[in-house]
């Protein structure tokens, strides 16, 4: 078990290295986390978790810098610029999220690269001839933050400007859920009654894609979405009395994925998902306040009107964990006797 813990620690060791909390990821912390699971599951969880991490589901700070640079270079090529300097002269980096959220941190990180290589700051880009607006973030999971920010930005006459002047809007991410992408695009289309959001002028670029739309073509399902193995899970779903949407997406269709390319085997997928869901439900039931309980899901936050087990993201960055990941990874309430592997900042319980 120690070898597995060491290997996992080598991948996630820079988690919260910049955070003021003083937290340091280490082997002891990982051991404490795994010891909260049933003894006979521990080795299995570590093995499977390591397998997942090796698929590139953790973005270190060093990776992050590289990904941002690659994505901006990719955009520059997509729009036919011969060099990145010319693109930067026409690119505006938006800073729409409140302080302390991921966008500001990522812009700061990217700015260091810009200053070092091109001698410009983020705010100096695109000042005279803005043609490409760029919104950077770490993950689009439920899509709620991006949807809200886009709605506000496009509401203030920016859509008219974009349509009239052939201006592009580009969301640059480390990871996106494909189901969220289509819902965000369609919600914006409906909200503004405009096909700009389903056109190639509105791009959502991501280094990693979570293929989670059950209705799409052969989804990989590289996340946590259990197939129906226990009737107790129905009892939990039944307790979500105010949730009425997407109940048909609570469970993975039994024939999916067509080929298992994410977990180490189909049976290991079933077992890993089952453990995370069972443990998550156990934690959820410890929340005494009913209002708070209904806002959480065992497999990570989603919209409260979704009758599902949660978003199920399995993607992590050095900066913070998304609360759309299964709660066994981040729940940290002493009286609930559970301490997540990745402590969370900027989140309330």
């Amino acid at each position, binding site marked *: 078990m120690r070898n597995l813990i060491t290997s996992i620690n080598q991948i996630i060791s820079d988690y919260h290295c910049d955070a003021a909390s003083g937290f340091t990821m280490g082997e002891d912390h990982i051991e404490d986390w795994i010891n909260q699971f049933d003894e006979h599951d521990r080795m299995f969880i570590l093995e499977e978790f390591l397998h997942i991490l090796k698929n590139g589901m953790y973005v270190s700070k060093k990776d992050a810098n590289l990904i941002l640079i690659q994505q901006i270079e990719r955009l520059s090529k997509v729009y036919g610029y011969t060099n990145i300097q010319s693109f930067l002269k026409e690119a505006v980096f938006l800073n729409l999220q409140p302080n302390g959220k991921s966008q500001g941190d990522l812009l700061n990180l990217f700015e260091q690269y810009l200053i070092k290589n091109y001698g410009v700051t983020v705010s100096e880009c695109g000042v005279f001839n803005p043609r490409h607006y760029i919104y950077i973030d770490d993950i689009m999971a439920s899509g709620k933050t991006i949807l809200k920010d886009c709605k506000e930005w496009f509401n203030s006459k920016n859509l008219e400007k974009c349509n009239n002047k052939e201006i592009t809007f580009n969301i640059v991410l480390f990871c996106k859920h494909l189901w969220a992408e289509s819902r965000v695009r369609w919600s914006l289309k409906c909200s503004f009654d405009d096909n700009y959001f389903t056109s190639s002028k509105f791009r959502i670029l991501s280094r990693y894609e979570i293929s989670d739309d059950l*209705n799409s*073509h*052969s989804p990989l399902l590289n996340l946590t979405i259990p197939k129906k193995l226990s009737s107790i899970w129905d009892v939990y779903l039944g307790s979500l009395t105010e949730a009425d949407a997407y109940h048909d997406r609570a469970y993975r269709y039994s024939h999916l994925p067509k080929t298992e390319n994410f977990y180490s085997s189909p049976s290991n997928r079933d077992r890993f998902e089952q453990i995370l869901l069972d443990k998550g439900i156990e934690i959820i039931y410890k929340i005494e306040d009913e209002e708070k309980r209904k806002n959480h899901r065992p497999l990570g936050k989603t919209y409260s009107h979704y009758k599902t087990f949660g978003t199920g993201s399995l993607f992590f960055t050095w900066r913070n964990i998304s609360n759309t990941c299964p709660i066994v990874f981040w729940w940290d309430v002493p009286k609930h006797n559970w301490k997540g592997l990745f402590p969370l900042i900027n989140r309330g319980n």
Partner: protein
Amino acid sequence: MNIRTYSIDDVVVFRKTTEKFGGLSNMASGFSINVNGIIIKSAEHLYQAMRFPLNPDIQNEILSEHSPMTAKMISRKYRDKYTRPDFEQNKFKIMKWVLDIKLSQNWNTFGKLLLETGNSPIVEYSNRDQIWGAKKDGDNYVGMNALGRLLMELREENVKKDIHNFCIQPLDIPAFLLYNNFIETICDEVYHADLEACSTN
């Protein structure tokens, strides 16, 4: 459907998507469609994909293509071997269903364009296809003009009467599938409701 003749002077005609009434063409972009949560770039993409309900890989090849014309060409590649056996007898029904969704989900743009055609006959001008369109013959357009007639039906039955159908029923034909999933009633209002819920969360 029978062959019809339209006087050139009386009709609203479209041939290219860039023309004033080009949006009436199935090839026109800017009228996205959502079926089972899958965003589809044009009516042509959807119509072509519905030829191959038992071949999700072909559907995906068609729907992943950016250009409607290329999507049609991909469809042509598989047409002889994989088209659903009852396609010929159902193709007008399928096209009507596609146009119903296009209108439902693009009411203010597509509907407005249909309204602007007034009371004129609508004709898709095509020298190659006298089933969906009509060709020039002296001072007339001659052909079955099936697309134009379906568009006129929509204009008369929905747009002029201001009947915006938010929900479009599936066709009662076997294997009405997209990516192996049955296509049920498609309600654009569901997406609106979803959006509302999002904004209050």
